[in-house]
């Protein structure tokens, strides 16, 4: 199935990935062939089949509400691209 350029642009925006004009057709081709692969799923009758999110029937463990983490700001910010006064800096957010 052929995936339209517009569709790819929408996906690229949602995923925050810039696609070079020159590679658009390659991306489109590759995505299309993968989608052909996964479209095989459509032929299967799955009526009444429960979706499986986890292989086990396990349920969520609950954690006691006690503070276990200490302040490690220095260690974490030592590897950050840009910080100031304990804040992580990013290009301005325009609301």
């Amino acid at each position, binding site marked *: 199935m052929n995936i339209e350029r517009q569709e790819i642009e929408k996906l690229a925006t949602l995923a925050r990935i810039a696609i070079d004009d020159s590679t658009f057709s390659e991306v489109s081709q590759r995505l299309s062939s993968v989608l052909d692969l996964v479209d095989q799923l459509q032929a299967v009758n799955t009526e009444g089949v429960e979706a499986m999110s986890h292989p086990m029937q396990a349920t969520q463990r*609950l954690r006691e509400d*006690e503070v276990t983490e200490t*302040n490690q700001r220095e260690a974490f*910010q030592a590897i950050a691209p840009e910080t100031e006064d304990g*804040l992580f800096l990013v290009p301005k957010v325009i609301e």
Partner: protein
Amino acid sequence: MSWDTVIGLEIHVQLATKTKIFSGASTAYGAEPNTQACAIDLAMPGTLPVLNKQAVNYAIMFGLAIDAEIGQVSAFERKNYFYPDSPKGYQTTQLERPIVGRGNVEIQLADGTTKNVRIHHAHLEEDAGKSLHEGNFNSNFSGIDLNRAGTPLIEIVSEPDMCNAEEAVAFARKIHGIVTSLGICDGEMSQGSMRFDVNVSVKPSGSETLGIRTETKNLNSYKFMEEAIKREVERQIDVIEDGGTIAQETRLYNGDTKVARSMRSKEEANDYRYFPCPDLLPVVVSDEEVAELRRNLPELPDARQARFVEQYSLSDYDAGILSSDAAMAKYFEAVISACNNAKLAANWTMGELSARLNNEDLSIANSPVSAEQLGGLVTRIADNSISGKMAKEVFEGIWAGEGSADEIIEARGLKQVSDSGALEQMVADVLTANQAMVDDYMNTDEAKRKKKLGGFMGKIMQASKGQANPQQVNQILAQKLNELL
């Protein structure tokens, strides 16, 4: 053309747990930036969420308080979007199977009527961090503080059952009262503990079809919510009457500038691509656990209101106000403990104290006048040590931090003179000193004499520097004047 307004609310309530919903970092308010953001909160590679038991319990308690279905099997989804305050690039929330299902909340309106507002559901989710647009950094940057990221929230979604701003505010207040009474939220709106998103639409009166709605996000005061709703209703009616159509959009209201605007297209092209979070398993709560939580539920506003009516002989309305907020109710009962006079305690708590707190935008938790102090003041009013007028002065003194009622009365020498002997002498002295007034009184028609009493009262109060007990003075004056007649 007359219009109906349809309002639905989404209320974000920060749960008062000690730690985040998915990590063991502290949620304490006011910490230095990023000192309460652990590896999980920062979305470091390889980190994983583990669910906070208390957050689940608090959510269930809310469900029980509003008689809702409890989702004994609930699950989490990922809501995908990019924003600096959301470090994972997705928010972990609940969509298909929330922890609290359909419920009901009854609200009381000013005219004494009640109305039922249906709750669609309430779900658990994590709060985002904060973006600061100004600081000790280049103006081309924003500073991100992730202390708040991961704080547990319940999002309470109502049905569009409200018809005007008053109902919306009453509903919001009721929710505030419930969550604070349960102790699951500290209710500090100035700290962002509760935030409101309002969905508003209008339709021609009587029409069955709902209009297009807009959403105004992140309101954190009743006043702003009321203003925002009123403005939005007006705006929508204007647009439609001008022949336009309402754009389904998200708006922000600035309470300081009183300006509402459409949010930038951050939301526009957003497809959140919800899917079950594979790092978390279904949350199962047993019947026994729910029963235990139900057994231990604290007193709720409605029950407290009924109790206040019975125990303190308050009117429904007064009881309603005093019981609606847990902090207010606690304060009120502490005042009664200190003075044993429910009626005066009620008057002063609802009246002078509340007015002053509102004026200065303080919550009762931060009242400069403690419950003990107010109780002390009420005691002195009740035992006639000071007059009502003096009481206001003493109240001001307590507010200003001068000490207790007794200390201020002593320091300023405000003790009301109620000694009948002293008062008799005072009245006699004034009458003697004002013969002309006395003569005038004597020569006045009986019917018109009452009006002249004020003049004598004025002089007596002046002479006593306001400390004479007015009721007693009245009696003595009347008696003495009668004797002269």
